[in-house]
């Protein structure tokens, strides 16, 4: 069950993991982007920390607030993408104060669709979609979430980017893990841990 307190805990966990991986995210982005992903995600989740001190009546309220915060603090492409993800997941959580595995999966599927729609992207383009979509498509409660997420992140290494700034490098984008895929796995791991 994901409770409001559990959701908050997941976001705190995501923040501390992003902080710990800030340089890695930035280095990956330097290789195939513009080198600011770690800095932007760190700024955004630090802002999320401050809104976690407030009280929320429903999971939907919390998800929406987190989405709006990310949208206005992260910037770049990641801001609208992560922001839209949490904002669009909010109505799925609705008035629930706790969510079972099925509801969490449904909300995350909404988030995944929002990312695809906002980024006008599909799986296979070496973006965060390559974590969100395959992770959720056949997700079962009994899965080893962390291992599955790690595998999906690694799989982006051999992809050629056809979307986002990495696409400017064409074939040269092969050989580097997509930084958005890595940050997505950090966020999803933190959430799934609280569902278990």
């Amino acid at each position: 069950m994901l409770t409001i307190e559990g959701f908050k805990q997941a976001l705190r966990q995501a923040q501390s993991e992003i902080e710990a991986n800030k340089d890695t995210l930035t280095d990956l982005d330097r290789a195939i982007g513009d080198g600011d992903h770690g800095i932007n995600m760190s700024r955004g989740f630090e802002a999320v920390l401050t809104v976690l001190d407030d009280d929320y009546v429903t999971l939907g309220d919390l998800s929406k607030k987190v989405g709006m915060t990310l949208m206005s603090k992260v910037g770049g492409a990641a801001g609208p993408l992560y922001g839209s993800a949490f904002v669009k997941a909010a109505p799925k959580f609705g008035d629930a104060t706790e969510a079972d595995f099925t509801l969490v999966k449904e909300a995350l599927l909404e988030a995944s669709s929002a990312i695809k729609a906002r980024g006008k992207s599909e799986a296979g383009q070496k973006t965060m979609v390559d974590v969100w979509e395959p992770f959720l498509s056949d997700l079962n409660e009994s899965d080893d979430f962390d291992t599955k997420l790690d595998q999906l992140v690694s799989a982006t290494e051999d992809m050629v980017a056809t979307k986002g700034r990495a696409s400017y490098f064409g074939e040269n984008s092969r050989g580097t893990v997509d930084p958005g895929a890595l940050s997505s796995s950090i966020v999803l791991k933190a959430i799934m841990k609280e569902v278990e």
Partner: protein
Amino acid sequence: MKKLIGEANELVSQMVEGMVHAHPELYGRVEGFNVICRADGAKSGKVGLVSGGGSGHEPAHAGYVGDGMLDAAVCGEVFTSPTPDMVLEGIKAADGGNGVLLVVKNYAGDVMNFELAAELADAEGIKVDHVVVADDVAIANKEDRRGVAGTVFVHKIAGAAAASGKSLPEVKALAEKVAANVRSMGMAVEPCYMPVSGKPGFDLNEEEMEIGIGIHGERGVERKPTTNVDAIVDDLLDHLKKEVSPGEVAVMVNGMGGTPLSELYVTYHFVAKKLEAAGYKLKRKYVGNYMTALEMHGFSITLLPLDEEMTGYLDAPSSALGFKL
């Protein structure tokens, strides 16, 4: 890398504060936001023109705020698109009641954040439209092309059209005409260094250069052994000439921020000689720092085919510091 900055996270805010304080006759700041608007506010009845993007491209974009050009510039973090709430503030500051046109460079983040802001403005009853500039021929696929120095010509021509009293659809049509025809390509011999991380956008050794760079410190599409500027200009012009036919053009040799003016004029000397020999008539010429990438050492060449209408708008008065006429 040594930097002349205070707290790195405050760089943009302190830059904006400095600009407004230094030029109070030109600039105002939307309180609480890194958004620069006109000192005298939105012009009633005029179509508003808003641009912006990450910082680090100075004089873009705030340098183009002024009579005859932009009404507001939204200054994101260095090389990071501004957020939708910031862009919305820029739109509000530029709205004179006759609609606002957003000039957006073709980067995934910029396009998403500006589109979100347009949706928010629409919900508040402000008429907003946008044009996306994608002038960088280094990227083969036209849909993926980045918006680079050619964006300045869009600011200038659309800005002059708006100042002359054209309607939102008319200003947009003109901006799209410029965007559809302007072409640019850039290169660098030295990277730029991100202020927060202190790291270079890419590592280059003494004997290498990057061809086809963007304006965010990202690597170019091709890494080559360095050669003299004469040959480099040939390389870039080969790409540009494929897409711009000989005729009357405006040419811009744009510095990337760390290029001495002497080198920019040497570059221009070769650009002009080669273009004229190839049958281009250089009707308007611009040499200087228009769209930079921090302290990157390099340049870009922009070509815009001209007709009488566009030439007229290029020559119209502008009080913007980055493009004073």
